[in-house]
């Protein structure tokens, strides 16, 4: 595409079908302890 470059991202709607294994890290546990964000947690499913 000439006008738009799309970054590679996880297909969010697809993750609805087979996500939710729960093995990922509890987001607040890792470094912040005072503000929540989940976007920086990697998925544990390989």
């Amino acid at each position, binding site marked *: 595409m000439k*006008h738009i470059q799309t*970054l590679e991202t996880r297909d*969010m709607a*697809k993750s609805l079908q*087979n996500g939710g294994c*729960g093995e990922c890290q509890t987001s607040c546990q890792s470094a912040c302890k005072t503000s929540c964000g989940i976007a920086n*947690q990697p*998925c544990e499913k390989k």
Partner: protein
Amino acid sequence: MIHQYKMNGYNIVVDVYSGSVHAVDELAYDAIALVDAGTPRADIAPRLLEKYKGRPEVTAADVADCLADIDELTAAGKLFAPDVYKDYAFDFKNRSNVVKALCLHVAHTCNLNCEYCFAAQGKFHGEAGLMSFETGKRALDFLIENSGSRRNLEVDFFGGEPLMNFEVCKQLVAYARSVEKQHGKNFRFTLTTNGIGITDEVIEWANRECHNVVLSLDGRKEVNDRFRKDLAGNGSYDRIVPKFQKLVAARGGKGYYMRGTFTHYNVDFTNDLFHMADVLGFRELSMEPVVTAPGSPEALTEDDLPKLFDQYELLAKDMLRREKAGQPITFYHYILDLAHGPCVYKRIAGCGSGTEYMAVTPWGDLYPCHQFVGDAAYKLGDIWHGVTNTALRDEFKLCNVYARPGCKDCWARLYCAGGCAANALHATGDIHGVYEYGCQVFRKRIECALMLKVAESLDPALARPAAPADSCADCGSCE
């Protein structure tokens, strides 16, 4: 829903429900805005041609190409994707009661007396105390018993200052290691410390046993020592920095974070991050806005907010400069894994406080997280009898991003999952509320983090290794 913004010369479009991120030229940026505004299709091309009439390279054919790109992405579900999750959110009332992470308050006491401490100098507005080995052991057993089929279990040694109870920390790790295999579990320990109690033995232990260490340092000496003082009022910088440096040097690449707090007194907090990187040699950095009562002298103000936005943007741009120079630093809130990040369940359910994540006091009481400890209304139960306040647990189970009216129109809601329940409670009196100040900071951080991803994708000077051709596009193993 989409979100458009410009930063560092990039035009960025985020498609909220697909999670797609697009870097676009000016024409596409304007075209997408017109489509988003509900402009009749027949009016879009004439309006764009009128706007760009001084630009001969923007022809009618070019505009048609651009609109075709938008149509193609829309059809592929990567632009203007519908919200297909909202009905699923209500299934969270049937979430399992699996617990996978505990914040162990092994010491409700501290050897520092930091004036801004949300934990009230480690005592959480209650009695001082140390967790016994027996209580800690029972907490680990409680975690194993309640973790279902989850393999990875997280335990954070927290306080107060956990190293004031180091012997028990060691004993608990040894106990966990002795039982994890038979239960099919993998314990990941984290240590959060102010550094005063670090010894060679602590370094050896933490670097062998702890998946991550969080080292509290606010940055420049004068900034750190303004709040991070000992009981006699002496600053801690000179004592803790050499210990942190020794620990990190011996860590052999394992995870760590230098974790600072910034306040109204140092809204120029990037200078503290750069001090930690350039003067002290640390590379893994985290810096948090202070959590304190509104009106306190150290509390961040509305007037601080534009300055903070500038700081976050400055940090992102400087991180690109460092990356190009081959000296990258990591900032916790700018870490984004767009290709292998959280699934949508995580993005809706959030941090898991009160359900899969709980805090344990030195006496074995359970709270939804460390920030609720000391508030009797939020006691969930204890490690011997389990969660007895099931109504409270159910309230937390349902406290997802779709349960927060204030999140309804926010483009960043699948990056924060509705935010911190404790912050919401303290700001609004309700865990379903929204801590708007924190939200504004969060949105700015995500904009910066996404800009970094765009730059890493588009700037040839940022030598990111290309993904193998067969890695993701058609793999789907995540799903």
